[in-house]
């Protein structure tokens, strides 16, 4: 086992968090960090996967699911999150949708010397939108996902979980 694998967040852990928090639907667009997670989600009869072609679509779909009584979760990459700014504002924040967005943190480096502007602007974007967020990098961080769900429910606002990309836990 490599050092990276030892500290990775496993897809099974993410699925367990989804179950613990009663997620019913995953609205998502594939990215390189989530392929193995996709296989697990697809095999789970209790999760509905709604694939989108652009990340902003995930916001209005999640809002509709929530309006109808479901508990959706959004799974996208940071690039798509930034693309989705107006949809996050209008469909999630504007309608008080307590969705958790699990966001692949492309370009993330723990030391902060980024070579990818996707990482450079991710947290600045979230701060500009005043969206609460948590960073997870390994299984030891998994309880932060539940913290995010609790906060979303309490505040009736979207909350982001950034998945540190450095260790590629989903993509083993």
């Amino acid at each position: 086992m490599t050092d990276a694998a030892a500290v990775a967040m496993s897809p099974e852990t993410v699925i367990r968090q989804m179950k613990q928090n009663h997620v019913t639907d995953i609205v998502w667009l594939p990215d390189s960090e989530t392929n193995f997670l996709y296989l697990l989600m697809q095999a789970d009869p209790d999760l509905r996967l709604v694939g989108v072609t652009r990340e902003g679509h995930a916001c209005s779909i999640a809002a509709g699911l929530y309006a109808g009584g479901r508990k959706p979760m959004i799974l996208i990459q940071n690039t798509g999150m930034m693309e989705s700014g107006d949809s996050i504002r209008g469909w999630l924040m504007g309608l008080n949708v307590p969705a958790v967005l699990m966001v692949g943190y492309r370009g993330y480096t723990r030391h902060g010397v980024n070579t990818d502007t996707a990482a450079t602007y991710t947290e600045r974007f979230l701060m500009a939108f005043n969206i609460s967020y948590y960073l997870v990098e390994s299984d030891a961080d998994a309880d932060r996902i539940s913290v995010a769900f609790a906060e979303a429910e309490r505040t009736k606002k979207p909350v982001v979980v950034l998945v540190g990309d450095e260790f590629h836990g989903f993509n083993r």
Partner: protein
Amino acid sequence: MMHTADLLNLFAPHRGDAIVISGRGGRHWIDISDTVMDIPLGDPAMGGHAGFGLGLALAQPNRRVVLFDSEGDLLMSLGQLPTIAEQAPANFYHFVLDNEVYATTGGQPVPNAKRVDYPGMAHAAGYPTAVGFSELGDVATALPGLLHTPGPVFAAFKVLPEVENTPIGQRVRWRKRGAEAVVRDLRAALAGRS
């Protein structure tokens, strides 16, 4: 071309217990029906109504969901069509009001306004039923059957533009509830029935 209000009045007797997302027809629909099952959201973020309708239809599979979308919204998010077709909610009726312009910004034409084949796009994306109407009489004939056709059903309606040039701050506010209250009220009503 038909007037949106006439189209909505024609639809109303066939509505049944459907949830109606009034979309760009909202300011007329609110004079016809204003219950918790009527969803006037205004414009949370342009292009998203189809996604909202899809989500609601998936969440409430035993109830018809009728959305009055617009061609401007649709053009902004054409990628939602294959998502809707893939999910294939049998209870979803995706109606598009096509006035060929951006009416709320002064009436500028949408790109290639007179030549875009919206039903053709929906059909190509995988909708099993996709039709277009330009005359109200044809709608009157087809609508009852259309609303009993398993969805997702797509229908585009050529409607007269109702162009607004008044500065936004001076426009008459037709909505009686904020969008967040509309969603809250709907969730409460649906939970109460389950």
